């Protein structure tokens, strides 16, 4: 394992994190919130110090960097950035407990949006900005950002592919253009453009600029941290609808937008995942509307709430407009399904990804078929192209890991004595990077009541969910740390 090279790449990443803290610090100074400003200054000094020490220790790093280093780098980056990023929360005293602060930060970077805070309106604006901005960074991935601005060149520059695969969601991640740097740039330009668009639409609807900014960050990263205690409950129908549309847009594979720019419309509309995604959204909106129309005065309002909730859950954002705990069990069951399915591969959303569900279903259908016709040879196809058998094999591995983690986490967090509905929805909501669950962790409540062990489990779940499980599992595997 080339620890030095890992450290050498980690060091500039931390400096990027410091640069990201600057606007938050400026807000604190402008508002005169001295405790928060002190928190950011100390955190920035600590981060620069860690980056400097890493730099000194890794001056003469050897060149070898392979798949294994790439995966470990990805896992470590997210952990180290979360630990340093949560310092402003605890030092400022706004989230005094370190574990709570870490939970909040990990929830931010992994674009989960689960919170341990009972209310957010009393937080200073710098802290609120940092919470929301962490969604934006975490949405597209900080390593992808690094690759967009500096060339991670070296003898084996192909390793950048492993980083892209580890950090971008989906069963088979590829580059848009040959050079990784240009791929990363295209992704970030699209991301910035869509975020700005969302921000402008929110501003047009009369939302104050700070709230519009934070909500644009939260929507873009499909995170879900808001600046109001009731999330989107008190905003106008226009703002709710705009956010519904943008949440859904950020749940689409970004390569679709790239193809749109290249005017390859036919390829986009023929995309099997996009069609399925749209199909799921429409079908669940219709079913939820029919189930809840009695709870609201007009059909329009029911549709608005249903569509917002579907967009919020399938894109794994986690904003809310209303108390979904009052909705009937059938709707909750649908929402649990949406939590698992999640958004599209290559989007900023979490969950299992629609593409994986399509592939898993097709592989299952083939298995059934093979039982009936044992000697038939058939290929699983996706977007008309045959899928490599290794992708199917990896998918099986992923599914086993996915459900094992859910079951294991569910058993551990059940020690805290909450209801089964609370626990299972809490695990699904954190592991799939959604945000709120049901019952004691529902829309009007938070994760603060869980014990330290459970919070650590949730932190691990959020990281594993965001990084497609394996970079985090690899950190826990003994063969990673033993000599080759």
């Amino acid at each position, binding site marked *: 394992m080339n620890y030095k090279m890992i450290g050498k790449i980690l060091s500039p990443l931390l400096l990027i994190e410091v640069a990201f803290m600057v606007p938050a610090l400026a807000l604190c100074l402008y508002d005169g919130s001295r405790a928060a400003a002190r928190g950011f200054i100390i955190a920035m000094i600590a981060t620069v110090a860690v980056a400097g020490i890493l730099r000194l220790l890794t001056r003469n790093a050897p060149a070898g960097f*392979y798949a294994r280093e790439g995966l470990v780098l990805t896992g470590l980056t997210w952990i180290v950035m979360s630990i340093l990023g949560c310092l402003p929360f605890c030092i400022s005293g706004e989230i005094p407990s370190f574990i709570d602060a870490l939970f909040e930060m990990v929830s931010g970077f992994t674009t989960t949006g689960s919170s341990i805070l009972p209310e957010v309106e009393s937080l200073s604006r710098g802290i609120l900005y940092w919470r929301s901005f962490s969604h934006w960074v975490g949405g597209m991935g900080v390593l992808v950002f690094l690759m967009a601005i500096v060339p991670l*060149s070296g003898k084996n*520059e*192909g390793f950048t592919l492993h980083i892209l695969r580890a950090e971008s969601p989906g069963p088979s991640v590829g580059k848009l253009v*040959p*050079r*990784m740097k*240009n791929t990363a740039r295209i992704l970030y330009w699209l991301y910035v453009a869509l975020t700005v668009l969302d921000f402008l639409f929110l501003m047009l609807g009369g939302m104050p600029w700070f709230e519009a900014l934070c909500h644009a960050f939260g929507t873009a990263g499909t995170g879900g941290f808001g600046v109001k205690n009731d999330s989107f409950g008190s905003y106008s129908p226009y703002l709710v609808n705009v956010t519904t549309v943008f949440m859904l847009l950020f749940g689409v594979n970004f390569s679709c937008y790239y193809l749109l720019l290249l005017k390859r419309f036919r390829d986009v509309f023929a995309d099997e995942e996009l069609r399925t995604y749209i199909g799921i959204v429409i079908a669940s909106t219709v079913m939820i509307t029919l189930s809840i129309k009695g709870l609201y005065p007009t059909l329009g309002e029911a549709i608005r709430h249903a569509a917002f909730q579907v967009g919020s859950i399938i894109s794994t954002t986690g904003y809310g407009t209303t108390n979904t705990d009052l909705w009937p069990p059938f709707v909750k069951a649908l929402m649990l399904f949406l939590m698992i399915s999640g958004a599209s591969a290559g989007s900023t959303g979490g969950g299992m990804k629609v593409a994986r569900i399509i592939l898993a279903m097709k592989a299952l259908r083939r298995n059934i078929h093979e039982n009936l016709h044992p000697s038939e040879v058939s290929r699983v196809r996706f977007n008309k192209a045959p899928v*490599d058998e*290794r992708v199917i094999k990896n998918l099986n591995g992923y599914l086993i890991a996915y459900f094992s983690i859910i079951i294991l986490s569910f058993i551990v967090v059940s020690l805290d004595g909450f209801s089964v509905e609370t626990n299972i929805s809490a695990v699904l909501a954190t592991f799939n990077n959604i945000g709120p669950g049901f019952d004691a962790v529902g829309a009007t409540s938070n994760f603060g009541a869980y014990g330290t062990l459970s919070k650590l489990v949730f932190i691990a779940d959020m990281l594993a969910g965001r990084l497609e499980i394996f970079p985090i599992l690899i950190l826990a595997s003994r063969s990673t740390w033993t000599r080759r």
Partner: protein
Amino acid sequence: MKILIAGGGKVGSSLIRQLTTEGHEITLIDRSAGVLEEIMEQYDIIAVQGNSATMSVLEEAGVADANLLIAATDADEVNLLCCMTAHVMNPDVHTIARIRNPEYRDQSYLMRDRFALNMIINPEEEAAKEIARLLQLPGFMKIDMFARGSAEIAELKIGADSPLKGIPLSKLSASIRSQVLICAVQRDGQCITPDGNFVLQENDIAYVTGSQASLASLLDNLNILKRKVRQVLIVGGGRISYYLAKEMENSGIRATIVESDGKRCHELATVLPEVTVVQGDASSQEFLDSEGIENFDALVTLTGMDELNIVISLYGDARKVPVIITKLSHAENNRVLDTLPIGSVISPKELICSSLVRYVRAMQNKEGAAQTIHMIANGQGEAIEFIVDEETKHIGEPLKDLKIKPNVLVVSISRGWNSELPHGNSTFRLGDNVVIVTNGDTKILQLNDIFED
């Protein structure tokens, strides 16, 4: 530049290594997902799976806005079809095809326009030409020609009793009485650009520049001039052997080809009337002895297996064959082989890569592009030839007044048929051929790149 490479074989992958470090955008097309995955993990490229001669695959690979297509799959016919198809889809794309089958050789040159080819590469033929050159000037391990042959760079291994050993380079020319320049030294796998205080050691490989005459006199003075090669034993009857035998038909060198396959022997005997073809198993030392291996002046091992080539060359060295040339297809781990007495190492794919890289650089800057590029020291250094043109800076200024980048050495200035070793008062003049050597840390694309300012 956007470059499509069809075929991820040996040539394909070492081209990718070269071209990605030079900053080009590479799309690789191959039929095998395994090959693509392996190369994607090593280099920053994008891959397309499929048959590179089909329109749909070429379209997916982005032929529409590509600048260059290099077809290097293992089938000549596919390479030709691939280039023709690409040319139909995008008339502006430059195409290069690898054609290896000797039967197609002549017609593909004649039909270049019809096939829409900008260049044809034939690794085996290039390798054969290189081997023939080495056989005609025995003593050096490798010779690269510049300025139409008026300047050369030769590779010389420093032996235990070499008179070049232990003297600082500044005092060297007096003691060896020849006008030559040591322009690069390969030591422990590293390429060093030496200065006047540098002292050569045993097992160093020195790259020596000079005119053909001064290099010949160097060999004379070093007492390493070996007797002229008259009898060469070629082991393996593949394509290189065929081209090599053709090259040597009129050179007064008698060739004997050993090949184990009876049918191939028959074919070779048909097309090469001047050559002695022997059927037998060259991995058997008894057989080599019975063929009288010790009576040959040179041994060239060209079988399809690197291991076998090394073993036969080692045996040739044990039987005191004076000149040995070994073909290695996988030459990446050359450092291990440096210490083995297997003579000169020829790697067809590296020869081809040099000429393809030269083509790409020439496409990139039409003005002032390199005339010749030779990789030295296992590809860690480069010797590049330029022509001084109107754009060149500092024409007529003495070299001693110019600031030249570190690790760049001007090794030869040729004017007409005369070449001189540069000294402090040498100047560049319009139309001169200039050869420079760099150790690869500094990328030199134009002559002006060598100046600090």
